[in-house]
């Protein structure tokens, strides 16, 4: 794509003007949805490097996700959860929390939008409900602490909150958590993401460690194939890991500033990297916010063949 092989990938033109809170690839195309502290949500065509749409909100946008290729949801610091329709530039308010909404996910399994907020609740929404909270709100579920991160796989929902709590829900029965756990890491939880195969989740802390957890404890001992995953840190590095062998596979060249968010495209050929200062050291001068889209070589993410001590077995 670019001349130097050791490059950081192609930088998208027209990045947000303030910190990037999240970015996500669509499941249907190479469209990239980006939410930012500059109160905007932007839709890019990553392969064409073109800005396809922009929405302005009443507050910083803390998270975003796709509904289908033509619409998405956002979590806003002005306490609102919104639905965006890209083609018409339309936006509806799906509902409100009592505090800034930190994260939003859309469940294809149940057709619900799930939001987590600093008001210590989780709310489920029906996006088809006509505008008006009373029509779209499905349920409110109190959490032990402020919700920091959410992740979904199948019918499982993992909620990470302040105070290192981790609640695992079954979306079909939200009345109480299926499991209540504590983070196995010592420090504040930063992010949680489920394995695509649905056996567990990876959890990261502000200290920079990542723990791999399993829903079913008996699976923890077995060596299951859960593939590789990428992590990005405030050191500006993106690493690709082989979870099976607990080895680092690849480290990409350093990005200008902290990695605020990462997203693989639907086929895994593209990796979007938000290089954007995340205010870990407070308000201070920092590099401009940027989005890089790099193509992923197979070498970088393919686990190296395991050297077996006895090839016969």
């Amino acid at each position, binding site marked *: 794509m670019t001349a130097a092989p050791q490059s950081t990938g192609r930088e998208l033109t027209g990045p947000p003007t303030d*910190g990037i*809170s999240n970015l996500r690839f669509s499941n249907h195309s190479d469209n990239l949805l980006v939410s930012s*502290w500059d109160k905007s949500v932007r839709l890019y065509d990553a392969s064409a490097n073109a800005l396809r749409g922009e929405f302005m909100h009443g507050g*910083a946008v*803390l998270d975003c996700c796709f509904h289908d290729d033509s619409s998405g949801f956002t979590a806003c*610091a002005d306490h609102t959860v919104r639905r965006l329709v890209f083609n018409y530039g339309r936006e509806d308010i799906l509902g409100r929390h*009592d*505090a*800034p909404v*930190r994260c939003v996910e859309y469940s294809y399994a149940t*057709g619900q939008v799930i939001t987590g907020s*600093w*008001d*210590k609740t989780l709310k489920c929404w*029906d*996006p*088809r409900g006509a505008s008006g909270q009373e029509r779209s709100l499905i349920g409110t579920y*109190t959490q*032990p*602490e*402020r919700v*920091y991160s959410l992740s979904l796989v199948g019918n499982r929902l993992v909620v990470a909150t*302040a*105070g*290192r*709590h981790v609640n695992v829900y079954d979306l*079909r*029965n939200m*009345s*109480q958590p299926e*499991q*209540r*756990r*504590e983070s*196995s890491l*010592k*420090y*504040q939880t*930063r992010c949680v993401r489920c394995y695509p195969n649905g056996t567990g989740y990876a959890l990261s802390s*502000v200290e920079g460690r990542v723990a791999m957890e399993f829903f079913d*404890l008996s699976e923890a001992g077995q060596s299951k194939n859960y593939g590789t995953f990428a992590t990005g840190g405030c050191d500006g590095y993106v690493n690709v890991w082989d979870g099976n062998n607990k080895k680092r596979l690849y480290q990409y060249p350093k990005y200008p500033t902290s990695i605020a968010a990462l997203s693989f495209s639907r086929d895994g050929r593209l990796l979007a990297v938000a290089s954007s200062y*995340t*205010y*870990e050291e*407070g*308000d201070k001068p920092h590099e401009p916010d940027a989005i890089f889209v790099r193509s992923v070589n197979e070498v970088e993410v393919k686990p190296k063949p395991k050297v077996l001590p006895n090839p016969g077995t």
Partner: protein
Amino acid sequence: MSNGQSDPLLQVETTCGSLLYELQIIWDEVGEPDAERDRMLLELEQECLEVYRRKVDQANRCRAQIRQAIADSEAELAAICSAMGERPVHIRQSDQNPGSLKEELRAILPQIEEMRKRRCDRKNQFVEVLEQIQKLKNELSDSSGYISTTLVVDEFDLSLRKLEELQRELQALQKEKSERLKQVLDYLNTLNSLCLVLGMDFKQTVSEVHPSLGDPEGSKNISHDTIEQLAAAIQGLREIKIQRMQRLQDLAMSLLQLWNLMDTPIEEQQVFQKVTCNVAASENEIMEPNMLSVDIITFVETEVSRLEELKTSKMKELVLKKKLELEDICRKTHLIPETDSSLDIAIEAIESGAVDATCVLEQIELQIAKVKEEAFSRKDILDKVEKWMVACEEESWLEEYNRDENRYNAGRGAHLTLKRAEKARALVNKLPAIVDALASKTSSWENERGIEFTYDGVRLLSMLDEYNILRQEKEQERKRQRDQKKLQGQLLAEQEALYGSKPSPMKNQSAKKGPRLSCGGASNRRLSLGGAILQTPKPDMLHPPKSTPNTRHGKKNDRLSHDPTRDDGFQALSSGRRGLDIAGLPLKPHSFNPPNSRELESPMMRKPFSPISSTDSSKSNATNMLEDLNRKHNEMLQKTLTNNKTPFTTPSKTISTLDEENRTPKTMAIPLPSTPSTVTVPMLTATTPAPSAPESLEEIEYSFEERRAGFVVPKEHLKTVIQI
């Protein structure tokens, strides 16, 4: 003569000559005069001249006619040529040797003939094209019955140019026709797919628009009118489709909710999989034939109403079941179900149909969750209460036993009783420590939560207080009794010295039982009642527990090395760990435990302490209530006591029973196996730090985002969470 025959003129001349000669002869014979003869000859000459002239005129006229014919022909030829847009082929070439007029005419006639034929052909072509144009125009025009004016071919313009023009027009019309046809077919396709999805008869729908459209082979009407009607039909069907889709999706949603609510088996759900998978589909995503037919919708509707009915019948059942569950949990944990009466009312309301059962169910479930959470937090205190009660029971037995004058008489089973007494004494020695530990634990629990710890509706602390007061009273009484006995002894000795007889001291003792009874707290009476019935149903035994063995105070220090110390030691440990833990999680040291046991760290434990509001709830109220409650719960209490007897004597069992409840409270797991001798001194001091420790640690952690957004956790918010 033969010559004359070959030439009629010659013959005529000879005949004329012979006739003249005959006339000469006749005249000679008659003897006509010469004058007469000349006159007659002149007359003859004149007559001949006349005849010639007539013939010449005739010939002249004939020539003029031929000329006219030629001119006419040429004019026609020219006209035809000009009409056909061709250059006049043949204009008389006068300079060329013309030949006779007749030749000329003969030459021109075939040309005319030829041109006429060509013109006719051309005309036919025109007619053909015009006919087609007319036909197309008719087809394209809106009114199908309209018949055009008769075909008019402009005779004077049959040029190729004109023909081409017409053909272009024809092509344009044909193109338009094909476009329209395509549009119609498109519409028909759309209509067909809509009809398919909606389960409607396509042919009938189409025939209603225009009869010609229903025929798959025949030509279709493609007028504007028809197209508009088709578009309208499509619009109509699409509206119906959206309507039905919304209806179906609504139904599907209720289906899903009902399934979810009633745990409908997958097989039953499978039938409607097709429907429910479209719950979030948009209008153009639903393409499956008959997906939105009336049949399917009614099918789903009946299922929903079936489930709805099932639900209402089941719901009551469920509500009652849940209510039982709630009551059961409450009973097990000695909690008073708060909204018992309101629940009853709610159930009645369900029966009368005034309230939605789901609301009530949700409410109950919420209560169950709440109660479970509370029960869990009460667990270890309850365990201690049980121990305490068992100890009290033993105490009362021991008292009774001590009063038995014949207790040392060797009889059957006496050695067993002795052993029991030995054990009971040891236990009774521990009692104050148990009570103290229980009290401190309870008060720390209360501080932590800001609510009172109640036991069957009575505040546990007041129960303990009463017990302590009672114990002190008994102690004093005992002391007084002892003094009195001593005094009596002296008196008796004096009397004996005087009279030599000795009254029984027992009389006085029994008389003193009265006042003790009246001052006994209700809670204690309940305890003693339970204890008494458990043992032997002797009527005397109702009172004994109120009297406490006098040895208790003396050995207090030794006793303290038991239960309370263990707990306190543990608390010290955990609070110490607390200091290390930045997240302020008190029970962190047990992170090696499997995660399912982490429930222990329920949010309750980590919340800051809200000020104790009114811990001194009026004792009188409590005791008043107690009287009633006691009666109710006596029976139940006996049961609990019998159950709890075993865990107390065999501590290992407690653990197992706790495990069954899936709680595995670490606080219990550690103290039980530990030997009392190892952990010793710091008990009463260590219990108190609990309230202060978390307070200092309650510095709230914030994420980067929260700091950046300037988000501060509101104070009231904390409180509400605690009160859940």
